[in-house]
């Protein structure tokens, strides 16, 4: 590989990653705004974003707190949602790189977006670079966005008016569609898993449906049988 093409590849990576950052930035602003508009002090969403750093868990924990569900329910819901990061960290462990400190730092950057972004790269070197570029950038953008949203807070009014609740699922659509289109085995598993998750959602606590979706992996045949 010539240095020119390496440079071009890095630029492509940053360009693609910056679009994920922009999208997540919108989501993070809505998180900060929702938390403060709901009556929490500014430091709660800001500190939570820095130390928990997991979008869907933050949304659900704040949602439970604002709904008066109590601290134990809020923490349990968030933790249940985040059990999936254990599966992500296993899938991505190879990618983080050598060295204890690298892995300790990298672990905190494991999110839906960064894992999807890294796994979309075929080549291991590029995959590692993709993880770190998207991960560090996302951490900065996410926390800056939450701070901005929290400071804007009540001034934004009801965030549902702007359709911001559609932003996070839309980010996930853009991230998983390429893999779902390219891999028939994973597509079958994902469809079954999503159907299972939707079916049980009314009956079980938040976080459980997504975990049950893993049962969809039964359709992941040993050989590449196309559907």
């Amino acid at each position, binding site marked *: 590989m010539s240095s020119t093409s390496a440079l071009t590849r890095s630029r492509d990576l940053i360009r693609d990653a910056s679009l994920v950052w922009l999208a997540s930035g919108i989501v993070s602003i809505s998180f900060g705004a929702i938390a403060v508009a709901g009556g929490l002090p500014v430091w709660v969403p800001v500190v939570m974003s820095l130390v*928990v750093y997991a979008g869907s868990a933050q949304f659900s924990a704040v949602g439970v707190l604002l709904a008066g569900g109590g601290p134990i329910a809020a923490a349990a819901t968030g933790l249940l949602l985040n059990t999936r990061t254990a599966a992500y960290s296993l899938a*991505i462990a190879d990618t983080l790189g050598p060295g204890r400190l690298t892995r300790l730092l990298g*672990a*905190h950057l494991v999110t839906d977006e960064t894992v999807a972004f890294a796994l979309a790269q075929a080549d291991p070197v590029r995959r590692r670079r993709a993880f770190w570029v998207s991960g560090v950038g996302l951490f900065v953008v996410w926390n800056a966005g939450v701070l901005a949203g929290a400071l804007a807070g009540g001034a934004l009014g009801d965030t549902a008016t702007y*359709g911001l609740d559609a932003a996070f699922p*839309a980010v996930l659509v853009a991230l998983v569609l390429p893999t779902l289109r390219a891999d028939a085995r994973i597509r079958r598993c*994902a469809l079954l898993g999503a159907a299972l998750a939707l079916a049980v959602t009314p009956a079980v606590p938040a976080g459980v449906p997504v975990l049950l*979706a893993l049962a969809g992996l039964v359709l992941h045949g*040993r050989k590449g049988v196309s559907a």
Partner: protein
Amino acid sequence: MNATVAVILALAVGTYAFRLVGPALHGRVELPARVQELLSAGAIVLLAALLATGALTENGGFAGWARPAGVLVGGVLAMGVPPLGRSRAWGRKAPFAVVVLAAAGTTAVLRAAGVG
């Protein structure tokens, strides 16, 4: 200790522990290729389920039509989005931000028009 601080601390410590599972086992346990393959597939399955439940449900019930309609519009635009990292092999695409803004915009317009 303030209850909100306790929630944040519990979430932070627990979440970081989950995230350490992979790096902690790495190099100590040799995972068979088949398991690695299933883990990668599992990550995508989790993301897809998160997307489906996030688009369609709210507090255990239906989220209303406006949100899934917005996500659907984003999805249609994203169909033109190439697999990340192989972008030059594909034609015109809607950038990520367009996908997300179109989704939010569609949902907002539908709500303004009175759709739930």
